[in-house]
């Protein structure tokens, strides 16, 4: 059995699955649109939660949030099911495929056989679409890959039931109701307002203030924990910012693309200007990644390099604070 699903590559897995599943149902929605309406841009810093032995820094909300929020704002109903039992998870998936429903799955990355070894970490919030089954192999559309691929029953079961933080528990999801009229304007405005509220939140670990807290902590990492650990933390931060999925610059370029696409829909020329500004900020995040990588490559011992990275990040935080204030006003 095989559904007539079309694979499009995307930067980020969750936007990509959402965009591909909705395109299959006849809604022409791009990855940046899903990302913008779902308020995908975010920053948070949880120093006590360790991921790969470094403090958790994220440039996006919790897994599932982007698609859920985007769907809600567009009036689309998405069904999500979790399973306690491997067998029933597979039966439910096959049932869907028989009914010609391509289905989104949350999976763990560590056992994904088609990923390069270096990228296989215990990260459980990856997303892909299963669009058919042939000769005991499931047909897989992983949106971060250029082309489609396959997994055996055992391989798919393993990634659907990966363990650890955010364990997927076999979760599958698919749209069950699509409205006849979609209020794009309203959905975009809600998405932007929500993003501004979160990025300007008066909480020291979220949004612009979260970026400032990280900036101030960089020299402290070096002083208190030594250069080796500080460099490890920085490397982890750059990976969260740039590794497969962010489209570059910690999602800033995807967001700029969203603003550009939203401008004619809202008939708001200010969004073109703001898109340009966001592109510039994205370029500064790229510069930050370049400079951070120089620090851990050369293993420079001056405290100065950490201070200059810290200053660079504070500058980005200032620009973003100004940006989101202007964006809020423009809507």
């Amino acid at each position, binding site marked *: 059995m095989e559904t007539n699903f079309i694979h499009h590559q995307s930067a980020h897995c969750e936007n990509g699955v959402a965009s591909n599943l909705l395109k299959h149902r006849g809604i022409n929605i791009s990855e940046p649109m899903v990302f913008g309406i779902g308020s995908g841009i975010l920053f948070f810093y949880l120093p006590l939660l360790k991921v790969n032995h470094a403090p958790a820094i994220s440039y996006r909300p919790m897994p599932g949030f982007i698609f859920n929020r985007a769907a809600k704002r567009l009036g689309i109903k998405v069904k999500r099911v979790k399973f306690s039992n491997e067998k029933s998870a597979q039966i439910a998936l096959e049932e869907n495929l028989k009914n010609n429903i391509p289905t989104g799955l949350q999976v763990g990355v560590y056992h994904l056989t088609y990923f390069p070894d270096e990228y296989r970490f215990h990260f459980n919030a990856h997303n892909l679409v299963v669009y058919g089954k042939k000769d005991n192999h499931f047909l897989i559309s992983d949106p971060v890959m250029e082309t489609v691929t396959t997994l055996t029953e055992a391989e798919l079961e393993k990634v659907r039931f990966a363990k650890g933080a955010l364990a997927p528990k076999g979760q599958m999801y698919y749209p069950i109701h699509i409205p006849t009229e979609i209020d794009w304007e309203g959905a975009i405005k809600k998405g932007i307002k929500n993003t501004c509220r979160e990025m300007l939140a008066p909480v020291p670990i979220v949004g612009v203030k979260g970026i400032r807290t990280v900036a101030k902590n960089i020299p402290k990492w070096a002083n208190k924990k030594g250069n080796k650990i500080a460099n490890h933390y920085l490397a982890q931060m750059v990976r969260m910012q740039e590794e497969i999925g962010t489209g570059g610059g910690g999602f800033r370029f995807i967001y700029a693309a969203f603003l550009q696409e939203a401008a004619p829909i809202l008939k708001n020329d200010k969004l073109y200007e703001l898109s340009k500004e966001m592109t510039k900020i994205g370029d500064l995040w790229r510069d930050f990644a370049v400079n951070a990588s120089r620090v*851990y490559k050369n293993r420079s011992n001056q405290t100065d390099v950490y201070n200059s990275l810290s200053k660079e990040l504070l500058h980005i935080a200032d620009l973003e604070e100004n940006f989101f204030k202007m964006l809020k006003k423009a809507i």
Partner: protein
Amino acid sequence: MKKEEVPQDKGNLSKNNIKELCYAIDENGNYTTALSTGWEPKTIALQNSIQDINERIENARVDVKNGKISPIVYFMELHKMDWVVLSSYVGMWIWRVKRHRKPAVFKRLSNKVLSKYAEAFEISIEELKNFKGE
């Protein structure tokens, strides 16, 4: 980022013939997408992490050899796990899993408990028991 600036460095992705999608602006300032084979700062960051993991594995191996810790710690590091991930895979409380890192406690473990670890590490009970850090 301009489209012609989308990095095409050699790295962990190009080695595996994988390209990732980036967002960039074209010559008219319009957003478009472009494929990237890799970017040096990312490659360095990833190498840093891999090096860190390899050091952790090596330290664990030496500690097992010197009888300081049980093989569980070595295989945990080898599979890039931490206590939280491991305890979730074997279905035991963290404090209990942490107790099993002591060689004396590990020696007394029943085959039933060992089999949970062996399954999580995808090895046999014998391989787990007989690992001496060599």
